[in-house]
């Protein structure tokens, strides 16, 4: 029994991504670096022996997942949970929260132009977003942010895996201004037509 095998056993038995430091708690001989080294070894072993699964870096941790190309063979089993897909409004709302977190409901609604209470509730029920703070001002509004589950759901290693804000054609504002103020910025924007 070696360290790589211990790490493998922990990864195999877990049904959610585990951080290296969490895996290291399995045994006193482990620390974060040793665990990460063991994971690299496992990744190489699985690659060499052409396993149908990989150790994937996911949601700031690691998890054993099947390779994508085996998808057609797995989807017809009742005992294998089907991934669920979000609706269009759900994705839009989540996109706003992901880039603007922490953000309140009123601001989300201003960006989307429609009421979002129900959508936010759904996202919260699915643990994709959560209340992370309370805002200043009247009523101390609830501010939402994304969760680990959000990263897992989209296969991101961390929030940095999202398309970078500065690479986007339009600069997203940090906070929504309550009055019109974008005039100056607008004149310096490149022409989009």
């Amino acid at each position, binding site marked *: 029994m070696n360290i790589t095998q211990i790490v493998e056993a922990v990864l195999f038995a877990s049904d959610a991504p585990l951080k290296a430091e969490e895996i290291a708690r399995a045994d006193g001989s482990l620390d974060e670096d040793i665990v990460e080294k063991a994971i690299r070894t496992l990744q190489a072993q699985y690659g060499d022996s052409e396993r149908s699964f990989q150790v994937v870096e996911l949601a700031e941790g690691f998890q054993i997942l099947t390779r*994508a190309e085996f998808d057609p063979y797995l989807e017809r089993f009742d005992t*294998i*949970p089907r991934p669920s897909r979000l609706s269009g409004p759900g*994705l839009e709302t989540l996109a706003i929260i992901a880039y603007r977190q922490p953000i309140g409901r009123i601001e989300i609604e201003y960006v*989307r132009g429609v009421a979002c209470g129900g959508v936010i509730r759904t996202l919260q029920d699915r643990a994709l977003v959560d209340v992370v703070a309370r805002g200043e001002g009247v009523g101390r509004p609830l501010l939402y942010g994304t969760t680990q589950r959000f990263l897992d759901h989209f296969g991101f290693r961390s929030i940095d895996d*999202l398309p970078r804000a500065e690479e986007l054609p339009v600069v997203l504002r940090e906070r929504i201004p309550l009055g019109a103020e974008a*005039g100056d910025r607008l004149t310096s924007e490149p022409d989009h037509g």
Partner: protein
Amino acid sequence: MDLTGAGSTLLTRDNFLVVELDRFQGPLDLLLHLIHEQDVDIFHIPIARITDQFLAAIQVLRSDQLEGAGEFLEMAATLIRIKAQMLLPRQEGEEDQDPRAELVHRLLEYEQIREISNCLKTAEAERGRRFAKGWVPTRPRPEISDTPLETTWEDVWEVALQVALPDPADRRHTLPALSVSMEDKVSLIVTSLAEKVRVEFSRLLCGFEDKTHAVMTLLAGLELSRRHEIFLRQVTPFSELWLYRRREDDEGPPTGGREPVPEEPEIPRGTRRRPPWMPPEEDEPADPLAVLDVDSDDQGADTMGWETE
């Protein structure tokens, strides 16, 4: 109102929007659609035209859709306000302040969000192709009531003392002795063959109803055959089985030497599939000689069923 150029197309577009309004996720979505549809420069929105088209599109909102209608109406109000501001002469120092600026930024921002949500959708689909080890929901625990137990150990002990051990006699299991003995059947065969040279198996069963008799008679016949005291003949599978007396000098059924092959006797159809213990039919021509003739040929060995010695 500048509708001259786009009058007819606007009409068809109106109809299109009448059907499609439910599909728009809100006023920004609808506004973006109008702008893209007409290839309008988003930084130079012809606000009057877009406003009119927007108002025409939301005309179809019925009173039972008021929940979502508020957002469209609010946008309509914003458009009208911008349109009015555009008509007003601008004061000194506000030259650069375009009344449309905030709206344009909102539109661009919303468009950006839609692009991001498309990215998320792709990422979601890609992630959905990979499976983790299946998650099994924890089984609900059986409900255990919190009522304190009132039974004491003494009660349990008392009941335990009353439990009688089962009588060892009850555990005895008796097997009924076989009602048919093989000796009886052996002597039956021997007796029968003392009188006759051969006998049908079924005749030996006459008067015995139980299947056990057939089995024991067959076993007795096989036993006698093994002891070389009789031999058995059967022309075809499931046909009548004959038991033959064996003379002292007999070496069993002739197997060697080629003799002229007599005509193969016709086996009555009705007897072919009859189990040996069933009595023969009335009209069965029990002709042992015919069988004998066949048996006298060595050809019978491979075509005519089995023989035992």
